[in-house]
């Protein structure tokens, strides 16, 4: 149980910069998900924390202790990889017990620890079985149990449920949720799957191109991405982006964009420039679509509607030459025509503005007076 802190961590593989001077703290006894697309450096960061990889420069601290030069076995960590690593030829219980044997624990203590993790992970029916009789999902549970049974102060998960089939995935996710609720270790969980991160994390650290771009609680990250990347990467589909302009009028600043019938006043975001380009971002499920006109709505063309997960409807829409997607509830979706004219409203409080460099603009839209 310790906070993990990395400072000025840099890793280069030849010309490729995998980690670009990352400084970050993983809080004690919490689950932090490292989320990002493939190749963003999340696995490299985790491997450096584990000691399996040497950083080009920078330091790693566990609590107050500098561990940069310690070998993995002296770091007191547990780790679970993408492919279930289990030892063939011995039973599930022996698999879990094996690393405990080098820890100078009494037989009774070892048995107690094995029993405890077996119970948490629901492996009760399998303890006596040989590993080869188990499917991938259960094998991964065994690998997790083995890492947890040692009671390390830090546990690292490297995409542990990527390689199991869909059914087992759900089950494993549930088991992880239960496990992380009961453990008090500091946990880092690497994944590229946002639903996994949303379900399991206390906080999500979003990575892009070797940097941590934002770290927040899942909902906060989802609703208020600090840059365009977060908006685009999270959500399915990601945020809808439309070019707009932020300009001053007599009483304050207003945003103009094709999806607003009239300029929308903002709070904050004042600038000396007469007009600056901004990107207007909104989650597809926050866009309101209706058959009739309403205040703040613009006329749009519904090009296509299709059913997605949870019987929600995904709509392809167009306003002028701006094409975008919206997601609506089953009720709304059913009431809409298959194609044709509809009305679209962007609730101002749901809109996030981004500057041309991709960063969020510190301004919120208000209801037009």
């Amino acid at each position, binding site marked *: 149980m310790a906070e993990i802190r990395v400072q000025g961590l840099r890793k280069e593989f030849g010309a490729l910069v995998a980690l670009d001077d990352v400084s970050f703290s993983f809080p004690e006894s919490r689950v932090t998900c490292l989320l990002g697309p493939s190749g963003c450096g999340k696995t490299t960061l985790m491997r450096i924390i*584990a*000691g*399996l990889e040497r950083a080009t420069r920078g330091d790693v601290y566990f609590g107050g202790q500098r561990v940069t030069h310690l*070998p*993995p*076995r002296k*770091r*007191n*960590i*547990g*780790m*679970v*990889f*993408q*492919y279930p*690593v289990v*030892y*063939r*030829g*011995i039973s599930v219980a022996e698999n879990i017990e*094996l*690393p405990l044997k*080098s*820890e100078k624990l009494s037989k009774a203590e070892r048995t107690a620890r094995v029993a405890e993790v077996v119970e948490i992970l629901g492996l009760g029916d399998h303890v006596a079985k040989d590993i080869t009789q188990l499917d991938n999902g259960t094998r991964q549970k065994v*690998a997790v149990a*083995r*890492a947890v049974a*040692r009671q390390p102060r830090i546990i*690292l998960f490297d995409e542990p449920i990527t390689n199991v089939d869909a059914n087992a995935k759900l089950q494993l996710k549930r088991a992880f949720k239960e496990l992380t609720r009961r453990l008090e270790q500091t946990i880092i969980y690497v994944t590229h799957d946002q639903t996994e991160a949303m379900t399991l994390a206390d906080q999500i650290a979003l990575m892009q191109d070797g940097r941590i771009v934002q770290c927040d609680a899942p909902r906060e990250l989802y609703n208020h991405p600090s840059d365009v990347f977060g908006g685009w990467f999270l959500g399915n589909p990601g945020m809808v982006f439309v070019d707009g302009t932020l300009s001053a009028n007599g009483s304050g600043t207003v945003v103009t964009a094709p999806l607003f019938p009239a300029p929308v006043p903002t709070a904050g975001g004042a600038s000396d420039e007469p007009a600056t380009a901004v990107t207007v971002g909104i989650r597809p499920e926050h866009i309101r679509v209706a058959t009739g006109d309403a205040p703040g709505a613009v006329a749009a063309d519904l090009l296509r509607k299709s059913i997605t997960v949870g019987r929600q409807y995904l709509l392809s829409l167009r306003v002028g030459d701006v094409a975008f997607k919206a997601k609506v509830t089953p009720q709304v979706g059913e009431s809409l025509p298959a194609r044709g004219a509809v009305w679209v409203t962007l609730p101002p409080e749901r809109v996030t503005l981004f500057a041309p460099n991709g960063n969020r603009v510190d301004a919120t839209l208000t209801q037009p007076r």
Partner: protein
Amino acid sequence: MNATARIRQGLYYAVLWGIAIVFFLPVLWVILAALKTKKQIIAKTPVWFFEPTLDNLQRVIERENFWKYLRMSVFLSLGGVMIALVVSFLAAYCFSRYKPRGTNFLMFLLLSVRMVPAAAVVVPVYLMYAAFGWKDTFLGMVLFYAMFSIPFSLWILKGFLDGVSLRYDETALVNGGSRLHIIFRVVLPQVKPGLVAAFIFNIIFVWNEFLFNYIIGGKSVTMVPVQLQAGVNSGGSADWGYIAGLSTIYMIPPILAIYAFQKYLLVGMTFGTVRGEV
């Protein structure tokens, strides 16, 4: 299945069996000869039906030094191959995990001693052994057979170790395991089929090895194959009954071993790249 298909399949099996039996004929000849009298063995028209006799086998077993030679065969084969397995497993682990510069070339060099005809290397090996004073010694012979068995074992085991994900090592490493723990407790059990394959593959070679044993083993460290040759020159003419009897007894262990481990043999011949069901 229609008639033509049935005939095709019948032919197919007939050819298959035919070829297999042709390959088995020399062995069959030896086994039958072991049960014949001297006259029946050298009869001009092969004798197919005869009353089997155990005289030859009895003569083999009762002959002076039979058990000594057999014991020597067992100890040399097992000793040499076991040493080879330990050495080549560790070497293969190193090659597979640390990938030292020039791994491929080194692996090639090691195998080269098995690429040239044995008769070509027997002279330098003899000179080497004479210089070391290892000639005619049990230890020298065991070490030679270890050296003889290491290349193939190394190739087979490296094939297997390359198939064991590095994540095994890393998992054990973060779980607090030392390198020795990783090698022997974590990785070794994963390549057991490879060890069996390397064992069975090399034991067949060493068990039947003649030339080196004859040249550098001398009189004191003699295995059965060299003793067979003694039967050829006994009393002016070849004693075929003795040779056939000794051969028959001597081939029982490898035949049993091959039969029991044939799936591993395939693995061995393909250096671990074709796994089958092992």
